[in-house]
């Protein structure tokens, strides 16, 4: 007897690299990333798609990876926090989060960064209000958000400069 349901082969491109894993059909994308591919930067905190800790980009769309089944990402392009720094250079948002104290415990940070990057990719010069609205899908329990929003707004200023 086995309780293991049928497993499926998932091929996807993660942060520009082709990856492949055989996973059970019930495997969520966050578990695939974390436990099959070893990309533990993405966190799971609520499991119901409301806190934003597990935010990744799938085919260009912000996605809660905790409520996305892994096999649905077959053939997809996935971007996670691990892919934000390129060629040894931090993304301006990452640098700004460090510079302006955009985190305390850091557990929400990967999700915040991935969400903020998606905002800047589609709207390079958001107003503070637009930033606040966009980021309302990412909970942070430590900061009261002031320094996170500050870090994002200042990252846009840094880009322009």
């Amino acid at each position, binding site marked *: 007897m086995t309780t293991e349901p049928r497993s499926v082969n998932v091929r996807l491109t993660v942060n520009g690299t082709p990856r492949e894993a055989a996973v059970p059909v019930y495997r969520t994308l966050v578990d695939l990333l974390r436990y099959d591919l070893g990309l533990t930067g993405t966190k799971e*905190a609520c499991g119901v798609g409301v806190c934003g800790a597990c935010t990744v980009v799938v085919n260009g769309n912000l996605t809660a990876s905790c409520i996305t089944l892994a096999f649905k990402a077959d053939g997809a392009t996935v971007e996670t926090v691990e892919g934000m720094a390129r060629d040894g250079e931090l993304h301006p948002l990452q640098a700004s989060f*460090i510079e302006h104290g955009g985190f305390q415990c*850091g557990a929400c940070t990967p999700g915040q960064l991935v969400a903020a990057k998606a905002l800047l990719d589609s709207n390079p010069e958001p107003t503070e209000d637009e930033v606040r609205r966009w980021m309302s899908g990412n909970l942070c*329990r430590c900061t009261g958000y002031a320094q996170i929003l500050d870090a994002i707004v200042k990252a846009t200023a840094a880009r322009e400069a």
Partner: protein
Amino acid sequence: MTITEKPQQQYKVIGTRPIRHDGLEKVTGRAVYGADVKFPGLLWGAVLRSPHAHARIKKLDVSKAAKMPGVFAVMTGADLVDLESKLVDMGEEIDNLAYTTKKLMADDKVVYKGHPVAAVAAVDLNTAQEALKLIAVAYEPLPVVLTVEEAMAPGAPLVLDDLVGEHLTGEARNTNIAKHTRYEFGDTAKGFARAAVTVERTFKLTMVHQGYIEPQNATAQWNQDGKLTVWTSTQGAFNVRDAVASILKMPESNIRVIPLEIGGGFGGKIPIYLEPVAAVLARKAGRPVKLVMDRKSVFEATGPTPGGTIRVKVGADSAGNITAAEADLRYEAGAYPGSPVGAGAQCIFAPYRLPNSRIDAYDVVVNKPKTAAYRAPGATQAAFAMESVVDEVAERLGIDPLEFRLRNASREGDRRADGPIFPRIGNVQVLQAAKRSAQWNAPLGAPSAPHKKRGRGVANGFWFNGGMKSSCNLAVNKDGTVAMVEGSVDIGGTRASIAMQAAEVLGIPAEDVHPTVGDTDTVGQTDVTGGSRTTFATGYAAYLAATNVVKQMMGRAAKLWEIDESGIEFKDGTFFSKSDPELRLTFKQVAEKLDETGGPLSATGTVNMRGAGGAFSTQIADVEVDTETGKVDVLRWTVVQDVGKAIHPAYVEGQMQGGAAQGIGWALNEEYFWDDKGNMHNSSFLDYRMPTALDLPKIETVLVEVPNPNHPYGVRGVGEAPIVAPVAAIANALRDALGTRFTETPMKPSRVLAAIKGGTLDGAATAASSNGASRRGRR
């Protein structure tokens, strides 16, 4: 903004804003948190939890689960030895070992919904969860007690049959009151007789959760020689080690606890839930075992902060001096004794100088999860009651609320109502700074729509802050940098605030001190990251270690120069000879010569601190109420706090903003929503609504620096005090906006709307005296 009491010494590093040493790892996803660890052969554990809030276990059969393919180990409460009654200090709370094993796993009775009953370790999480379904448990449900009123009623069902209560009359059996404490000073009856105005009200609160983003987790592995290693997300590795040692009855030196990065705690990651379970499963399975809680378990089976009932009575004479105050606090401990009602009782009157006072505090067990510390545990509840009543007294006397608080403010040398004499405190300075703050002097502005109303509220809050044990090791590298290993888990930037204190002594940049959080085998005993003690106490240990390094480096310089050590001075990172101006060497230059002057150089600092500086945090709330929906928007918020000395001002501001944000959530939205069987109905982030970026304004901060004389740089704790005042500040703002005094949390739309319509949530007519919103002269 920072207001410094008097010009202080000029520092090079203290008070600056260097970047965090762990910043890079945290923004790249490389920082390793508890759930991220991976080992060859790792098994996953899962815990079976009680579906009843109170029931006797008639039968528990795990045999089927144990036989399931893929299952390596099964455990029940029978695998944990009963421990004798013994009190252990867990940092911010005292724990009784007699209940420790039962809390981890029920024996013959479950006492809250979510109480662990059994656990399984299997090849993967899914198999472990499937195996739980094969465990047969027969429960006989028992009547539940869910509120302090029910629990204290005569003839109430007993939550714990063997509880021995400590009452004023001595030991008591057949009770749900675990402890009753009383503090009395002066004669309150006489004091109230002199009062021109007396206000007495009863407040009710419901449980709320710390809401840390990272759920609890633990991984355990045994070596062949009987040594155990535990990786976990905890606020105190040594406390975990000692607790696991006593539960498993093994020497603590055989256990190594490695604290990984921690995704928030706020007090909730002081108690242990999973570590001993992982250890027992790993021992049985002969393989490493990892357990990670889901959010539902975090809500239902870790430690929230208590709800309860608080009655406060305050009298004042016509000149506005408080003549007497009384408080009666009854807190839900959860299913086992140990609510923070003691701290609530000690904090409730702290902002005031009282000639007569009386405080009664009851720790009451109910069929809910055992509560844990949550940021200034017990003080927020107390301040909600006291600061609301104080506001009403001021209003009745026609005195400005800040003016009234200033007139009655506790000062150095005053006696706190529970006994201690205040050392140097910044209460008055904080209240004065609040009066001068931008927000207090700005107009509230007209409502944004005709059906909206605005109000402003203010409240003060006190927290003691902690001291306790800390350790720090420093080793000088030959390139002039310093490796630091300190024992405090870094929950929000304390690597930096500790390293900065060492750097200040050493006269080197903060970046040149490289901090690492040690584990229980690599650094001396260090108590929890809690009680706002870390920057104070572990920072002090770093200061001592650095002072020792300087002394040793001086000896090395003396060797190089072949002069006596007494002829050398150290200033601004440079050693120089008092007599020969030619002889100067920087810290780095002496470091380069370590090999020639005797080899490696290291030092240790250890402390067991007393003399933490208590902190006051006054907060100003501007709110707008939608009278059609009952929704309350926070328009503007200021936190004014005595921080002693801000080592890293940005991180201090972050603590003040974060604490206020949690308090605002507590005031307006957060609650454990119970049915009458003791089931929590909102155990997910979907239904337990914590503030988002849209729910909060940019919280303004005013740092008041009244140095703590017991610390070389004047540090007080800063993390906890900011959560104390917000609930009361919102209640006072709502009173200003609507003329209604709210006496229950949360002040959610349905409750606010019911009040606007002249009733309460349960349909009763409102008891709140509403003689119109207060209209203060300044507006």
